[in-house]
Structure formats: C-alpha cells, structure tokens
C-alpha cells in the first residue's frame, strides 16, 4: 500500500515536471535566441545555450531610439495610471468597507459584473469618444483608459483588506478630532499596505501589458508605448527572430522584477481577489 502511494506521488511529480517544461520552454527558447547570432538562431540542430553568445540583438535594440523611447513612454503612462487607480479604488473601497448605505451591495455586485466584460468590447466607441474629446495621442487619454482595467478588482482586494482592520482604532482617532479623510490616509492605508501593494502590482501588470487600447489611442510614434512599439518595430511578415527575442526579454523585465520581489503577495492577491467574489 505504501509503495503504491509512493509510485502515485512519483507519477504526479512527473506530471508537474512535464507541465513545467511546457510552461518554461517558450520562455527559455526566446531567452536563448536573444543571445544568438542570426546564423545560430536558424541552425539545426537547435542549441539551448548559445555557442557563440552575442549581445548584438540587444545593441541593435538599444540603438533603436524609438524602442528605447517607447519603454520610457510606457513608464510615463503606467506609473501615474497605477497611482491614480490605487487612489480611486482605495477611496471607493473605504466607502464600501466602512459605511452601510442604500444601494451599496447592489453597486458592489454591478462593479464586479462590469469587471467580467472585457474592455475590448468597447474599443470602437472608445476610439470615437476619445477622438471627439481630443484625447487621442495624449498620455492623459491612455492613463484614463487604463483605469477601467483594474478598478473593480482593486476595489475588491482593498475592501477585503480594509475589512480586517478593527474599527476601534478609528473610533479613538475620531474622538481625538481626526477627519474622515484622515481616517483613510493616516490609519487605514498605512495599516493595509500589503493590500495596496497587491493592487499596485495588479494595476502595473495590466497597464504595462495592455496592447489594444494604446494601439488605437496612440498613433504618434513619439508617444507610442512599448507593447505597440514591438508590434510596429517587427512588422507583420519579415521578422528578425534575434531582434524579436531581445525585445521580448526587454518587455518581460518589469514583470520579472515583480515576480522576484512580490511573489507571495501576488499569489495571495490573485487567490483572495478571485475567490471572495
């Protein structure tokens, strides 16, 4: 009986290994291509560790001013978008967590319902609206558009965090003359920084990765964000796989940084945010 159990566990372990290979192979392959010369990238049999490692793909990328610029454009858009989104969500989460008001529960359900509908549904009218409002080709426009990606999820995560903070703390502060706004900024937010970190990570991840919205809202090459710049840089049919791989690795950088530093919060955040629905 014991032996049988061990065999089963070994088989399960093997399945995990196979799935790991499926998950990692594309990434490893792209990573290794990015350090290969053009000749080696197309060679048979393929090499996993480049025989003549080269930085030429990265040098090419760094010399492409538009790609470099777009990387910073992305940051210019994503950082304010993240700050704005967390602030707006925290305010709403505070209302949901600390007040019981008419229609509150229904509103929460509606907000979550909206989260189900992907923004891609709205790209055509959004293009039109942004055009009429003069928001096309502006950072402001993209920052606003990014808000919708994560506000519902953030409200949810933050509300769950705020709920865990005992109300007695605030009651004492109110007696000492603390205003409503100060309750949020001086008591609740400092105490729930893990929740704020998760929502910031989520906002960053969604905004950094967004492709469709900036593709439509920004056509000015000087303001293009990274995801769109990759698309334009590579063209549709003739692709240099070394350059492609280098730009993919480049685009993964912020995400890898997030994984390395925040893996625990990230997993908890996804599980909490998704389950308490």
């Amino acid at each position, binding site marked *: 009986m014991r032996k049988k159990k061990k065999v089963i*566990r070994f088989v399960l*372990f093997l*399945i*995990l290994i196979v799935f*790991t290979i499926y*998950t990692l*192979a*594309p*990434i490893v*392959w*792209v990573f290794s291509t990015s350090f290969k010369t053009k000749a080696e990238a*197309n*060679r048979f*049999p*393929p090499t996993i560790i480049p025989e003549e490692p080269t930085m030429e793909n990265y040098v090419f990328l760094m010399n492409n001013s538009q790609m470099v610029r777009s990387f910073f454009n992305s940051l210019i858009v994503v950082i304010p978008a993240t700050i704005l989104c967390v602030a*707006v*969500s925290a*305010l*709403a989460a*505070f*209302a*949901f967590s600390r*007040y019981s008001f008419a229609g*509150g529960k229904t509103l929460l359900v509606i907000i979550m319902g*909206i989260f189900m*509908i*992907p*923004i*891609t*549904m*709205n*790209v*055509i*009218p*959004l293009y*039109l*609206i942004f055009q009429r409002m003069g928001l096309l080709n502006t950072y402001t426009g993209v920052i*606003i558009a990014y808000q*919708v990606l994560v*506000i519902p999820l953030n*409200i949810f995560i933050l509300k769950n965090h705020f709920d865990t903070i005992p109300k007695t703390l605030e009651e004492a502060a109110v007696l000492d003359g603390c205003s*409503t706004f100060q309750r949020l900024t001086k008591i609740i937010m400092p105490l729930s920084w893990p929740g704020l970190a998760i929502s910031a990570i989520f906002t960053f991840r969604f905004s950094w*990765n967004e*492709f*469709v919205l900036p593709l439509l809202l920004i056509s000015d090459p000087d303001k293009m964000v990274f995801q769109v710049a*990759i*698309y334009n840089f*590579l063209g*549709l049919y003739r692709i240099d*796989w070394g350059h492609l*791989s280098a730009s*993919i690795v480049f*685009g993964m950088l912020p995400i890898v940084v997030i994984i390395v530093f925040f*893996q625990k919060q*990230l*997993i908890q955040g*996804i599980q909490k945010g*998704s*389950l308490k*629905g």
Partner: protein
Amino acid sequence: MFKLKKLIPYLMLIPALALMFFLMIYPIFWNVDLAIHDVEISTLNKVWDFIGFKNFIQIFKNERFLESLRVSLFFVLGCVTLQFVIGFAIARILVEKIIGTKIFRILFIFPWLLSATIVGYSWRWLYNDFSGLINLTLMGFNIEPVPWISSPNVALISLIIANVWFGTPFSILFQESALLTIDHQLYEAAHIDGASPFKCLTKITLPLLRPFIAINLILITMWTINIFDLQLIMTNGGPLNSTTTASLYMYKQAFEQGKMSLGATVGVILLAINLCISFVYLKLLRSERA
C-alpha cells in the same frame, strides 16, 4: 449636517463610478448608436445616415461573419475546456504538496503575467516553419515538420495551444484556492468507508467545488470570446481567415476596413453574448450565497 454625513460614502464612490461609467457604460450607447447608422471612418465627423437594423440584417447574411462565429465557437470551446481541465488537474496535484510546491506555483503563474504581444510573438517564433523550436524538435525525431501557423487546417489549433499556455495559470490558481477550502476530514472519512479516489473526486470534490467551477468557467469563457490581440499578432486572422474570430472580425471591420458601423454591429452582438454569460454568473453567485 446629518444629511451631509449620509452623502459621504457616495462622494467617495464618485471618482471610481465616474471612470467606470465613462469607460464601460457610456461607450455601449455609442456602440448601439453606431450600429444603427451607416458610418465609415471617413464619415465619422460628418452627419451619420440612419439606417435602423440594416446593419444587423446585413451582418447575419455575411458569410465571413458567420464563418468568424464558427471559428470563435471552436476557439472558445477548445481553450476553455483545455484551460479548465489542465488547470484543475494541476491544481489538484499541487494541493497534494509533493515537493517544491511553492516553486512550481510561481513557475506556472509566469505566462499569465505576460502581455499578449509577448506571448503572441514568442509562439510565432516557436511555431516557425523552418527554425522554430517545435519543428526543429520534430525533425530531430525524424518526424515531418508541421506548418503550425501557415496552414489553414492547423492554425486554429496552434492558436488554441498558445492561448491555453497563456490562460491556464489563472485556472490553476483559482482551482487551487478552491480546493483548499474543502475540509480534509471529508476525504479521510470517505477513505475509511472504502471510497476509491475516483469516487472521492465525483462525490466530494466536484459537487463541493460546483460554484467555483462555474465562476471559473464563465470568467475564462468571457475572456476567450473577447480576446483578439493574440490572434492579431500570431496569425493576423489568417491563413485564409481560419483564425479570424468574431472579436478579431469586429476589430478588422472597424479599423482595417474603416467600416465603423459594421464593426460596432458585431460589437453589439458580442456584448449581448457577454451579458448573457454575465447574467448567468451573477445568478450563480446569488444562489451560492442563499
């Protein structure tokens, strides 16, 4: 003063609600408005011709659109089934805590953190006919290389595989945390009563997870129906429109053909499909709480 206090929570909600109204609700009206007019990208800023439901009649007679609905159906069924089954199986193994669970979990989540651009281009490179990893491996085993994304018969399947790679991590995490809510004593009791592992799965695990499974399925269904950036990058809808899903068809009508109204019409149809699914989702949530 008393009345003002009652207003405070609403005031705090205004920024979030305003943004969501502006970006999610308000555009829906514009979408419908576009769909009942005849507007092309060149006539966007002129007077719109009102044509009522003609666009809807025209679109349902359009062979290309009907074809894209079929592609969407196949794409969604394939992606959702595979993502869920694989996600559930992997989650079930992860909760056994065999060895290195934490490391596996963080590795498995990786694809979900990437962008459609990065996933799309990475898979294009993997699928490359002559120097992509997959065909090189096949050739290494003396197997005939497969025209993964250059043959209309295979391209949709290749697209599904890539999207499954992209989307499965969500189902793994979701089902893992769902599985953790089940009291372990239930299994021990069943074990003492001599229940087989298969019986445990069908009689304990699946019934208890029913609401989680439903939510998971509906979420990934909606995401899969609407995704089009992956197709745009990997195959651009081709070859021979074999990977043009309804969502991609919508985008192409509006922004490549310039037929804003026809695109909006497809958008309205997709929205209706989405709302139906959303409605089912909310119903399930309610019944779970009751």
